[in-house]
């Protein structure tokens, strides 16, 4: 069963990554990042169960904490950018280039 879980987690991670690459709306990109984080949590929990060692679950717990902090800051930035630029598209902020 463990391989199934891991493959699922890999699949979710890949979809999240593709989502980050394809979507232009900052918030959707942010959600895809959250999806990738969750995929990792799933893998951690699976390994915890596999090795019979609670560390996996502990790590997953910490990941959630960090994810929360990250979301707060990320969304604050998105709001701030939106307020100044009136657009939440990721591609609009491309002044720092050649």
């Amino acid at each position, binding site marked *: 069963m463990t391989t199934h879980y891991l493959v699922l987690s890999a699949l*979710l*991670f890949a979809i999240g990554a593709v989502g980050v690459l394809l979507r232009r709306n900052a*918030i959707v990109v942010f959600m895809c990042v*959250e999806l990738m984080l969750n995929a990792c949590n799933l893998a951690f929990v699976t390994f915890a169960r596999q090795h019979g060692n609670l560390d996996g*679950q502990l790590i997953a*717990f910490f990941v959630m904490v*960090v994810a929360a902090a990250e979301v707060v800051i990320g969304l604050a930035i998105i709001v701030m950018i939106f*307020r100044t630029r009136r657009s939440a598209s990721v591609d609009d902020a491309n002044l720092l280039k050649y």
Partner: protein
Amino acid sequence: MGETITFWVLAVVSVAAALGLVFSRKAVYSALMLGVVMLSLAVLYAVQDAPFLAAVQIIVYTGAVMMLFLFVLMLVGVDSSDSLVETIRGQRFWAIVAGLGFAALLALAIGNVVFTPAVGVGQVTQAKGGNIPALAEMIFTRHVFAFEVTSALLITAALGAMVLAHRERVRPKATQRDLARARFSGPQPSPLPGPGTYALHNAIDMPALLPDGSVSAKSINRVLARHELEDDFTPTDPEKAAMIREALAKGEAEEREHGVEAEQPIQAKDAVIKEDGQ
């Protein structure tokens, strides 16, 4: 046996939801899709005897973080759908190639590892009397520093968000006298008509009438009005439907004419700032 069934059901649901998250046009739909994924994962945690995590996932993650997303979506304009046409040349193609490649690689990696049957955390949790005490004992003995650091992290995150979102008051707070002066120098001295003042109806979606009898575009919520028109929930009385359509058209005309800021309902405070700013 039950576990495999739940796994396969939830796996399919979560993958579909993930795909939906990535490919849906509207941001709100993506948010909901993410919620679905999170919930299915929570169940999977539970199945993998991590009840505490399942609970935290549902309460904290889905409950709080997802809702945060929805809030920001609302702020940013829930209807801001973006077209799926790709602007960067070759981005889509290479993104998919990379995604597939990565997934294949991981699958390959996982594939060629032969797993012994899972040991399961049962034995450890019994010794400590349940999953939560075991986790608690670990957190507060071996990982107490990490725990304290995460608490500091959360506080700073909260503080950070406030600092980021805070807008320094550039001018003194508008006093009562200023507000009065602004109102009478502004285009709209009298308070805006309440939804029902000359309202023929007390429904939220019905536009109020201006003293000169014309429909007030600002008195309705454009998003709701648009939904009604699109999904044909307009009131049966054609005359009322016409009023909604008229208000909506007038709002969009004004929006085109004045540029974006006409979208939001004008607060007096902003009017003051705008005037002084000129």
